[in-house]
């Protein structure tokens, strides 16, 4: 067991190293940041000075080593555009993204599971057919389109919800939350739906498929034969067994919700990490881009690691195979 966890942890470190190499290599081709930082008629001497002070003239291996050692200590340098430490900017923006991602995931899980169960149990009802069709749209429509459609309907035509921003936020130390004000909650609705829609349809279809599978198994038949109530069979026995893979998927999806928040945040001008990243790309703000990639991959790797460990805890069969393989 310990060996398994250690091996997984080592693999995670390997993944992080690889991401670091890729992100560093990529940014070598992102353009010259100095041109973004100064006016058109800034003199060449001044440009050269800035370039030197940013360490952009050093040999590549030296730049890489410096980058890696700093990153390992969460020192991501100073943003070229804001002249503030990147770690500070990320800390400032992280609550917005995490709040949005959490809301989207809760929404996706709640509705996804409910609708999934419904469409598995009432396979032939009209509503199920509608849900199936709608879920296809949810899976295939790009996020930004859904976001813009929502904005036009609920902000421009109906005027119910704000089209951009986070509304008013309340601060607790460095954490800022929009959950405690009316405008903050209103501002959260459309971005959460936009971000969570894909996950919701995914979970819905997954729950439905799993549920149908489980309902066909022998123990459900035996339970029926024994005379248990339908309610007990469906929700006591079938649902419980359906949820194991669903929780895994949802856990893993949380990482991609954070990562894909980039698009939602851009459409709604949501002041989170994703928006920061997009602004950084437009301005060749290499320190922010590098830090963002590393932070997101760290989140991914951590979630994967936890899920892997939980798996072995939850499922004894897996532990046995792992034991044999080792």
């Amino acid at each position, binding site marked *: 067991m310990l060996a398994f966890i250690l091996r997984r942890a080592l693999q995670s470190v390997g993944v992080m190293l690889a991401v670091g190499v890729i992100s560093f290599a990529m940014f070598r081709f992102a*353009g010259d*940041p100095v041109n973004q930082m100064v*006016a058109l008629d800034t003199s060449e001497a001044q440009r050269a000075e800035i370039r030197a002070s*940013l360490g952009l003239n050093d040999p590549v291996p030296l730049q890489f080593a410096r980058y890696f050692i700093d990153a390992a200590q969460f020192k991501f340098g100073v943003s*070229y555009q804001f*002249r503030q430490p990147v770690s500070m900017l990320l800390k400032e923006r992280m609550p917005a993204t995490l709040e949005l991602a959490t809301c989207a995931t809760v929404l996706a899980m709640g509705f996804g599971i409910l609708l999934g169960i419904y469409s598995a149990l009432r396979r032939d009802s009209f509503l199920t057919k509608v849900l199936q069709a709608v879920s296809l749209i949810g899976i295939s429509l790009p996020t930004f389109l859904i976001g813009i459609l929502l904005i036009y309907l609920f902000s421009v035509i109906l005027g119910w919800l704000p089209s951009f921003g986070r509304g008013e936020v309340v601060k607790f130390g460095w954490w800022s939350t929009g959950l405690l004000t009316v405008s903050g909650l209103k501002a959260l609705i459309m971005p959460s739906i936009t971000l969570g829609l894909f996950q919701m349809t995914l979970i819905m279809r997954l729950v439905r498929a799993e549920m149908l599978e489980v309902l066909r198994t022998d123990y459900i038949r035996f339970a029926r034969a024994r005379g248990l109530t339908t309610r007990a069979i469906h929700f006591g026995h079938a649902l419980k067994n359906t949820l194991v893979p669903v929780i895994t998927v949802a856990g893993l999806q949380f990482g991609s919700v954070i990562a894909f928040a980039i698009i939602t945040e851009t*459409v*709604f001008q949501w002041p989170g990490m994703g928006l920061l990243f997009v602004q950084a790309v437009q301005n060749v703000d290499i320190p922010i881009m590098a830090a963002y990639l590393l932070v997101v991959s760290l989140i991914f790797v951590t979630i994967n690691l936890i899920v892997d460990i939980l798996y072995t805890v939850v499922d004894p069969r897996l532990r046995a195979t792992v034991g044999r393989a080792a």
Partner: protein
Amino acid sequence: MSIRLSSLAAVASLIAAALTPASAQTLRYANQGDLKSLDPYTLRESTTIAHHGQVYEGLVARDKNLQTVPGLAESWETPEPTRWRFHLRKNVKFQNGDPFTADDVVFSADRVRAKGSDFATMVANDTKVIKIDDYTVDFVLTAPNPILISQWDVWYIMDKKWAEENNAVAPTPAAATTPSFASLHANGTGAFSIESHQPGVKTVFKVNPNWWRKPEHNLKEIIFTPIASDATRVAALLSGEIDIMEPVPIQDISRVNSSPNATVMSGPELRTIFLGMDQTRDELLNSNIKGKNPFKDIRVREAFYKAIDIELIKTRVMRGLSTPSALMIAPQLFKLSGDFTRPKYDPDGAKKLLTEAGYPDGFELSMDCPNDRYVNDAAICQAVVGMLARIGVKVNLIAQPKALYFAKIFKSGGYNTPFYLLGWTPSTADSHNVLYDIMGCRDNPNSSRGLTNIGGYCNKEFDALADKVLQETDNTKRDLLIKAAFEISNKDFAYIPLHQQALAWGVSKKLKVAQRADNQVLPYWFVKQD
């Protein structure tokens, strides 16, 4: 005595309250670009400068028609051509209560030309700034400069005491490693003060009740939010969540105009969009012509010029929102620009010129173009490619993001382009900047002349005129010299000026604004109804 004073003050404030419009308003403003640093010497970029102009003021200012008017200096004179004397306004206070004096001007002059300032050209290094008394400052130059103050409306004066107390004496350099105090806080003499500033997210300005000017606006605060996404910015305007935004994307103009809440205010901008041709290399880059450079032949440049149908670009690519230009400078910035006309669109004549020059079948070359910098920049280039194809010139278009584009074509990239599109607004609002930076010879590596002359056009007669323009103090004579210079460069077909793009602001119908052609959004002239 003190009781009487305070009761007087109370009465005065009551009167002041009665005089201000019934309800002071909140202006909600969104822009595509964000406000990064609050340090007024960090980034010379028009959106940023306009934001800073709400808080800070210069010795001079520009009015709604871009005319230079007194600012923190009440008046000025030039007792001798190299000495400028400024008489400062008395009883002006910074927002923290510090009085404004000559010391602040001397301090600002040193700070603005210190290492790390992006505004270092405002005050030359060899200019002596001398405090005569608390309200008089002399600027002693090494050579006469009649346009000394032409950029000073954006050289904002900072508070010496405040900067010293907060360790902000040095300008925030582009490569700062710690956030400087001045990049997150501001203390000017202007109409508004900064209430809060979160870069890239939101900035709140509060009205400055002690502003020395009589306010023309009726605002109590400005909430600025950058909204980069075009669709969201338009939606926010249409739904009434913001009062003003800039820019309105060309394709959304008719929709904004047909909405009940908002209209688009458009007008010609000062930026001139033009095409440049490499006239220095002996062999053209990325071309099938080997061993020579067709652009060295004036007939080829003329052929390119005449092959471009500027009206088609205006109607099709710019949807009417451009002003074709015969000059490399906008008509608002040069009085005699009406004397110039563009040569007629003439593809047959262009073809004939190419044949005369020895290219009857045209030739092949590449073209560099940004795709995220100017209005429809890549689309303009595509149109140009099509038009040149008609005279047999095959153009391979390389359109890329500005970060890559500028790195390639500027001096740092070795002027690495045979044919390119660029836009230029003279930061001095004066022709000399164009004659010197864009069109001057760049053959002297120690001079900054021609720094952005990417095509490398060079005519010594032209340069001599440009130097005379800098020295001439009589405006009429000066304009004639500028005209003579532009006549030379037009005759040489040095560049192909295309147009001035239009600026487009989306404005709520509740808001009355003054729109200035330099595209600075300046809320201190805005009046908002209930």
